[in-house]
């Protein structure tokens, strides 16, 4: 389900199965992958509140998958830009990233996702214990950076970035609001995986 946009984009890029990426395929690739990365990120953040509301703890498995898909689409987004938009012109890429703060913000978000993806296995979770939870709170920072990056690159129509900013604020606000209870729960014996 979450992979289908990527398959569709791949079909469009290769020109197979009658899929077309429109008049400006490079822009479509950057746009669709960036949008998917952001959506997956928001979905990842929605899991904990959903779990707390519904009591479905198997949602946690979904959370890992969503997080990895966010990373996957962020990589596709980044590489579409590097390969197709910039034509792998390293000098140009470097000067662009240095000159355009919104790119630096996006790049920081993508970089921060790397350690999270690498420690996404159950083994890593067991090994890092409490530190895993702390590490994976980086997701909050990544989400803020991602919305900031999106906001900054918009030409004029801010409705979409505003919508994402509101959603992310609600999802992060939920955690702040719930914090006293979480702290209480932590002092109680045998809590399971964290609230990241």
């Amino acid at each position, binding site marked *: 389900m979450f992979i289908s946009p990527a398959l569709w984009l791949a079909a469009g890029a290769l020109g197979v199965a009658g899929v077309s990426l429109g008049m*400006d395929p490079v822009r479509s690739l950057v746009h669709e992958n960036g949008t998917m990365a952001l959506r997956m990120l928001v979905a990842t953040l929605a899991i904990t509140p959903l779990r707390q509301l519904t009591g479905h703890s198997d949602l946690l498995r979904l959370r890992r998958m969503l997080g990895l898909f966010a990373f996957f689409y962020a990589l596709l987004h980044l590489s579409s830009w590097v390969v197709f938009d910039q034509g792998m012109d390293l000098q140009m890429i470097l000067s662009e990233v240095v000159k*355009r703060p919104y790119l630096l913000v996006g790049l920081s978000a993508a970089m921060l996702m790397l350690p999270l993806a690498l420690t996404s296995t159950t083994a890593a979770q067991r090994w890092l214990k409490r530190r895993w939870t702390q590490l994976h709170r980086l997701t909050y920072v990544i989400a803020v950076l991602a919305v900031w990056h999106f906001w900054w690159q918009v030409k004029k129509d801010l409705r979409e970035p505003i919508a994402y900013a509101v959603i992310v604020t609600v999802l992060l606000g939920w955690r702040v609001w719930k914090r006293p209870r979480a702290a209480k729960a932590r002092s109680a014996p045998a809590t399971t995986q964290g609230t990241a």
Partner: protein
Amino acid sequence: MAHKSASIILPSEITSEALFHDRRAVLAMGLAGAALGAATPLTALGDIPAERYKAARNARLSVTETPNSFEEISGYNNFYEFGTDKSDPAANSRNFKPLPWNVTVDGECEVKGSFALEDLLAPQTLEERVYRMRCVEAWSMVIPWVGFPLAELLKRHKPTSKAKYVAFTTLNDPKQMPGQRERVLDWPYVEGLRIDEAMNPLTLLAVGVYGKALPNQCGAPLRLVVPWKYGFKGIKSIVRISFVEQQPRTSWSHAAPNEYGFYANVNPAVDHPRWSQATERRIGGSLLARRQATLPFNGYADQVADLYKGMDLRRNF
């Protein structure tokens, strides 16, 4: 251009209150006998016969690059009046009615009034001009416009010595232009040129593309084309042309003055704050096509660089 014989009935003379003024203005201009009425059968009010758009190419002022396809030109547009996505204009402009159309000409000129489009076109020989189009977003196309030099229209209205600039206004009609229901920009869209820019032979008023009337999403029925400037200067669906003394408050330069200037000349040396203007992506290339270098004044420096002699183009971007 034909003159005289005021007895020929112009389409606009099939009287209605609103059109009464057009006729007076047209008579005042001495255009009443224009070939249109005589040469073409009377069609519905405001119609412009299809043959008019099949214009001969002005090779001297056309580039030799291969034009983009009609599908590209009519499927990838920035026309915020119909939505902010580039596919929105084609999708949301289907019910737009470009004809009949009136244009108000006013301000610092002698011949003012509201004119039916067909009357404005009557004295013009339309020509095809293949121009480069460079969007401020760093993509570009090559487009075979059909139109006539703006200068010819402006001169007929006899600008006074106070006419330092020309301001253009797009139709403001949220019923027909759904994008205007959102205040993305300060509607109506306004653009402007210095009078010498407006009089430059390259500056075109376009009514068609590929030998046909402009599709709605391309700014039907009348739009500006200034090939050495970024595309947003090419205001679409024009309802008003005003001669003014002060530099007009143009939409994008007002919305984001640090990003879009009044002049907006294509300039690879002056970046947009968020992207480089040194290169551009030609629409229609393969996924692996390289970006190409953007040329100063979009390659029209020979014809227009003189207009800006002594000006700091970094400041006046």
